[in-house]
């Protein structure tokens, strides 16, 4: 409709006004008014739909990405950083959304207008309009070259965006460190360097893009001059009328205008192409920890067997964190894991709920290879309280319900009592409904750890893994916690990673790790006799003393 209107207008002027036909003016006026009304309605509708479609498109992109991220393995999460995933989910999607909307609105209209103008021009004078035919491929080539040139820069810009986001994130999260070392200026410098790089890259990219517009102008103006020159000759030779030349110019203007519109679309497309590729990376990344073909949906018991397990975070080629682990744990046992800083304790337990896959060897839970289980089933039965645990903004009980959606208040309270968290929760202003700030900023370290343990207990798992989860809990509370676990949950297999010998000394079995190898397995008494490392650890705590050591002295 909008394409026709300008042509009707041209007619109105040419015939109606210039010809002085009032009746014709009325007739065309009526048609035009009707057209305008139609165009108005259609335009409003198409505007609404394109807005609706593009935001829906963006929503779907975000949703698909987020859903896919949920299937990511830990290894994939380590590869994409948080900051980068955030940029991809927001900035990149916005870019694509804008381009999409622009394409919806322009991509149909402008080419249509272009083609129509062409056809009209062709009808006026076929030979002369061949000039356009020559110009267009030239134009296309130019645009193609510019875009190809600019694309890698945009890819770089968005990678820098990730770094910008990361710097902001690290500063926001680590503001206490920044402030306590009075490093505000240092951080500003760091940030300015990154924003300078964005400035430089973006400027470079857009400056190259800025050539598109003049390029179009060159082509179109050259066309017009050619038309003028050749047209004049044709007129003089009597092969063309003045009016026809005038129309030719009008159509040339029309073509120029649609090309300009198209060039705007191109700009958006180029920016969004880089974004689209980054989005596609997230969408394409497949979890390398997928369910097997015929997954097992129930875990028979809480026994754990490591058979010749090697593990490396970097895959088979990387340095091994764990070498030839051979351990059997019966269901219901309490097992302590001890070892120096960086000896592979955390790596070992992360293999049990299949947070990572072993590089070699197999891990069996309940006598079945962990890779044979349905992931959800396995992780529901193996509860890990991570060393670096996260609480989320929301109330205490909302956080606890992560363990079990439908837990009753009694169940929640019971889990909290066992985790020694009930007391302090009740002491908080609104008890279980107290709002936690993000990351649990309004809790002390020990309180956070106990909440995390309670959350894990609510899952009622067959295997509970505490990865140094009581390091900030005071010794007395730690002891009561272990006591509660022992007395009240005898069925559950408990793996406890700890620094304190006291935390593991009454375990059925203690595994001593050193340099990624199992050095010794045995009870407290046995290890004191046989294991040199264990003796050292024990004596270091005896000598230096610890609240726990005094416990049974």
């Amino acid at each position: 409709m909008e394409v026709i209107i300008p042509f009707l207008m041209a007619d109105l002027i040419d015939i109606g006004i210039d010809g002085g036909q009032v009746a014709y003016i009325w007739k065309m006026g009526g048609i035009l008014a009707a057209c305008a009304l139609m165009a108005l309605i259609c335009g409003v509708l198409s505007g609404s739909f394109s807005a609706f479609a593009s935001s829906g498109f963006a929503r779907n992109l975000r949703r698909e990405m987020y859903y896919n991220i949920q299937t990511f393995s830990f290894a994939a999460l380590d590869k994409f950083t948080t900051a980068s995933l955030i940029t991809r989910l927001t900035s990149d999607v916005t870019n694509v959304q804008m381009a999409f909307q622009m394409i919806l609105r322009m991509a149909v209209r402008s080419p249509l207008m272009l083609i129509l103008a062409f056809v009209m021009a062709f009808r006026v004078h076929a030979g002369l309009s061949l000039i356009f035919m020559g110009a267009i491929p030239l134009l296309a080539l130019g645009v193609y070259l510019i875009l190809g040139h600019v694309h890698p820069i945009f890819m770089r810009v968005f990678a820098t965006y990730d770094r910008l986001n990361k710097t902001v994130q690290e500063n926001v999260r680590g503001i206490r460190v920044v402030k306590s070392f009075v490093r505000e200026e240092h951080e500003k410098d760091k940030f300015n360097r990154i924003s300078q790089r964005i400035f430089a890259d973006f400027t470079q990219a857009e400056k190259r893009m800025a050539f598109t517009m003049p390029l179009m102008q060159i082509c179109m103006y050259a066309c017009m001059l050619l038309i003028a020159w050749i047209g004049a000759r044709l007129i003089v030779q009597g092969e063309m009328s003045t009016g026809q030349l005038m129309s030719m110019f009008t159509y040339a203007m029309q073509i120029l205008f649609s090309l300009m519109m198209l060039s705007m679309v191109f700009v958006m497309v180029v920016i969004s192409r880089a974004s689209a590729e980054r989005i596609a990376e997230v969408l394409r990344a497949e979890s390398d920890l997928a369910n097997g073909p015929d997954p097992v949906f129930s875990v028979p018991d809480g026994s754990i067997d490591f058979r010749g397990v090697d593990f490396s975070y970097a895959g088979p080629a990387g340095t091994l964190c764990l070498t030839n682990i051979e351990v059997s744990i019966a269901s219901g046992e309490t097992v302590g894991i001890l070892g120096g800083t960086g000896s592979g304790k955390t790596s070992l337990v992360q293999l049990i709920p299949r947070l990572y896959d072993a590089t070699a060897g197999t891990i069996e839970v309940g006598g079945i290879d962990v890779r044979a289980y349905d992931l959800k089933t396995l992780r529901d039965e193996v509860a890990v309280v991570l060393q670096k645990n996260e609480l989320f903004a929301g109330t205490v009980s909302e956080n606890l319900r992560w363990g079990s959606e439908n837990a009753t208040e009694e169940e929640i309270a019971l889990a909290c009592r066992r985790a020694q968290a009930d007391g302090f929760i009740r002491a908080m202003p609104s008890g279980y409904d107290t709002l936690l700030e993000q990351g649990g900023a309004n809790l002390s370290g020990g309180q956070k750890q106990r909440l995390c343990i309670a959350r894990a207990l609510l899952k009622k798992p067959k295997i509970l893994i505490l990865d140094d989860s009581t390091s900030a809990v005071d010794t007395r509370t730690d002891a009561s916690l272990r006591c509660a676990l022992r007395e009240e949950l005898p069925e559950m297999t408990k793996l406890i990673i700890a620094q304190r010998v006291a935390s593991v000394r009454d375990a059925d079995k203690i595994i001593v790790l050193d340099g990624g190898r199992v050095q010794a397995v045995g009870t407290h008494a046995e290890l004191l006799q046989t294991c040199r490392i264990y003796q050292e650890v024990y004596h270091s705590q005896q000598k230096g003393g610890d609240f726990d050591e005094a416990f049974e002295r």
Partner: protein
Amino acid sequence: MKRLSGKTALRLLRYVSRHRALLAVVFVCISISAVAGVAGSSFIETLIDDHITPLLAAGSSDFSGLARAVFYMALIYAAGIAATLFYNRAMVTITQGVLKKIRDDMFAHMQTLPVRYFDTNAFGDVMSRYTNDTDTLRQMISQSIPQAFTSVITILAVTCAMLIINLPLTGVVMACVFLMLFAVRQVGGRSARHFMAQQKFLGEVNGFIEEMINGQKVVKVFCHEEQTKAAFDAKNDALARQSASANRFASILMPIMANIGNLQYVLIAVIGGAMATAGIGGVTLGAIGAFLSLARSFAQPIGQISMQINAVIMALAGAERIFQLLDEEGESDEGAVTLTAAGERESGLKSRARPAEGWSWRRERGDGSAEYTEVLGRVEFQNVTFGYVEGKTVLQGITLYAKPGQKIAFVGATGAGKTTIANLISRFYEITDGTILFDGVNIAEIRKSALRRALGIVLQDTHLFTDTVRENIRYGRLDATDEEVTAAARLAGAHDFILRLPEGYDTVIDGDGGSLSQGQRQLLSIARAAVLNPPVMILDEATSSIDTRTEAIVQKGMDSLMDGRTVFVIAHRLSTVQNAKAIMVMEQGRVIERGDHESLLAEKGKYYQLYTGSFAESD
């Protein structure tokens, strides 16, 4: 939701006008480019009237005049193209310059904000302001501003021309303009509301993603994927709804404007035609023809402006959130006392007898001279009361005294207020009541940067930055040499494991990634504080994730690290607490027992209970 204010627009324009000179050149170029365009249209007339018609009349084939005209026109076009190229490129510089300036300003201001701000604002929402909100400005500055300029010029010129030709018909045009403005107001106002909501929800989604992806491992461990998907969907849908409404209002504006323009065209044709036939107001058919083409060139810039309104409104919505961050009140720092090096600064960890030697507090006197107090590391709490939230005290009447070089330990159940004490000494939060003195100077009078420089803090939450191990340790003191970094790492017992890393000290560690164990991260943060070599150290559960065997190895280094410094230690481990000069036993925000290890044991109170682990229930 509050409406967009003109203030935001003005403030934004102030940023743009920092590039005044370049902007002026841009406007000149735009004018040249516009003139070239206009010259193009009048060229057609010249071509026909001055060249073709005479040629036709003369019947000759002398095209030299025409060639000259075409050549001149080519020159004008070339100038126009050059101007277009230049102003487009200049606008890029301006746009990106403004964005950079705004980002830098935001970041600089963010560094001054109090810790409390970060407790209460979603991290991801803050991040969103640097990316999503700042990005909204891009299109506006690079396209809308030049476009607006061109359009305004065109509209003014056309209006003048119309007034000259015919007054009543100009009235018709003005009525239509009024209608257009009305539409802009109505529709634009509505879309502004939704754009503001859109940016807000975008921030929320950003916040949600940041929190969830950061805790993604917990999500996995708890098989909570479905629930977070549902929560994400809710936020995502809300964003999409706002975005759809905002864009709908914005994109229906263009057809509305364009078609009001069309209607106006018809009206002029019809009214003008009627007037001409009736002979009113001396309207000739020729005049109508001219007027109509003017009306067309009048509608075009308006259509272009309406296309930009979308961008402008969105930019204002983004700017609103940016300025919101910039207007956030910074940490108050009225302290007049600063830290100066009295003697020459001898760096190196062991070259000085005392860590604090050579430093003094400097207080300006009114008369320009200054009063110096030697930095010794004496810290006093006098009746300090504090609560994070008003009405809920966390610390109650704390009084304590640490002599220079003393080690003071805090023990007590979790949540007793130990970390809070560390937070107050470093003035992350302002105390509600009482005073804290540092070498006899009230810390409220010490400039925060000076105070914190005098403190070495190792926090419970180890936070490292994405950088090499070396740079992370050097963070403590930026001018530390490589040798000093290594020495600090040795003191903290981190040296051995660092050497075992793939690239040693040059290994790049990820800020929150899993490349290091928690214990290793703690060792690095101790080394970071050690390289600062401060007179006072605060260790908040600094060794909780380090196994005792490693700690025994670290202990010697730690001992020499603490030697000669005032040290505040928060710990559970006896090895770290036992040899403290004074041990404060805390419970529910009060110090309930104090003394050294022996005397506290003899007291057989809370400390004795904690120490012996005997469960005489008391809370």
